[in-house]
């Protein structure tokens, strides 16, 4: 390892640690202030980071924690994947066929504008089981984002490369593989990064409203009605960590697909 590499690594670690330490400090100060203001009941409103970490560790040793976290992860990832597939297919259809554009564009715009709470309540009325509601709601949040990004990627594909594909007799499949997919992949990756955050927010909100048996949202709801604020924070931290892990995993997968360029 060269001195410059060591220095770069040190800088990288400092850039990760300093902001984290700063915000944990702010959080701790807030918790101390709240405790002082409420005469020792501050953890009902704002528990400190140490207390939350303690609850998180206590929860993590129970199988129910992993079951709830795993099921939420599965539901939200399934919804994300469904939304990504339908959104991409809709973008391809609208780019390829004008009638599909006329029909689908207003529908996708409506989906984009409808509040997530309306979707949750409506899907709860129609869905056969409460477990599928978070997945469907997540899919509905992801769909317009991927549709917009992939559509933009298709429209931004270099016309000179498309003319080259035509002149060099590439055929449809080869043009798709060599030109469209690599051109659209960065737009798709960027859409996925945005959509994953939305999928978690909407999916957990749906779980809070429809209370499936094993779900982070259900745990959040129960923590709220029993005033277990440290648990509320611990589950929120769990959502943040899972969202981050899933975003990194999807990002790594897309980079691999794009040969490191997505």
């Amino acid at each position, binding site marked *: 390892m060269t001195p410059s590499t060591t220095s770069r690594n040190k800088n990288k670690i400092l850039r990760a640690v300093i902001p984290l330490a700063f915000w944990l400090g702010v959080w701790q100060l807030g918790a101390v202030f709240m405790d002082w203001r409420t005469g020792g009941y501050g953890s009902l409103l704002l528990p400190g980071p140490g207390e939350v970490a303690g609850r998180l560790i206590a929860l993590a040793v129970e199988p129910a924690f992993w079951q709830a976290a795993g099921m939420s992860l599965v539901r939200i990832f399934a919804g994300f994947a469904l939304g990504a597939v339908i959104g991409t297919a809709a973008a391809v259809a609208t780019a390829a066929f004008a009638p599909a554009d006329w029909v689908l564009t207003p529908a996708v715009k409506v989906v984009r504008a409808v509040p997530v709470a309306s979707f949750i309540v409506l899907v709860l009325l129609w869905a056969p089981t409460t477990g599928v509601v978070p997945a469907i709601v997540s899919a509905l949040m992801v769909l317009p984002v991927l549709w917009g990004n992939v559509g933009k990627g298709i429209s931004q594909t270099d016309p*000179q*490369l498309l003319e*080259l594909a035509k*002149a*060099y*007799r590439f055929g449809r499949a080869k043009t798709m593989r*060599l030109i469209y997919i*690599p051109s659209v992949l960065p737009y798709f990756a960027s859409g996925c990064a945005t959509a994953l955050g939305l999928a978690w927010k909407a999916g957990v909100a749906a779980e809070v409203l429809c209370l499936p048996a094993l779900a982070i949202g259900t745990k959040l709801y129960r923590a709220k009605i029993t005033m277990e604020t440290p648990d509320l924070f611990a589950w929120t931290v769990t959502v943040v960590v899972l969202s981050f892990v899933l975003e990194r995993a999807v990002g790594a997968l897309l980079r691999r697909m794009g*040969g490191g*360029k997505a």
Partner: protein
Amino acid sequence: MISVQNITARFGEKTVLDRFSLQIPDTGLTALSGPSGCGKTTLLRVLAGLQCVEEGTVTAPRDPVLLFQEDRLLPWRTVGQHISDVLPKSRREEVSRWLALAELEGEENSAPAALSGGMGRRLALARALALGGGLLLLDEPFTGVDAPRAGRILERIRALGMPVVLSSHEKEVVELCDRVILLDGPPLSVRSI
């Protein structure tokens, strides 16, 4: 014989070829020479079937291949992949042969971004040559390529035996061709050397 008879072609609002006629023997190397904007690129695109003509007739060998004026390389493909992408599966072992023709040996795994301007041009040329066809149409094939190297590559192209029509500003390249067609904007003059 390659021929265009009374063709009219526009580039946007501008009429580039106006009832233009020309006959070119379908053997050897033919150079189109003339100032920028005189219609060389448009004529090559018409011969390649990529530009519609408003009137007139075009007769050219089947499956012409055009080397575009721009390199049009795919940033996500390696140098070797650019060649293998245009070759049928049965001819994939020819990659090194076409790279050698364009003097790009050892660059097979390089990315286009790592190539110099002249190397990128030679890769685009190697790709067009590997694709092959009944007629090679080369639009400024040696931009950024030094004259001695351009001369060597042109002689290798001649040895392929395909009819070639190329446009060039470089005197050294034009002088190596079997005939030169001077385009000075419509009307044009034709002169053989």
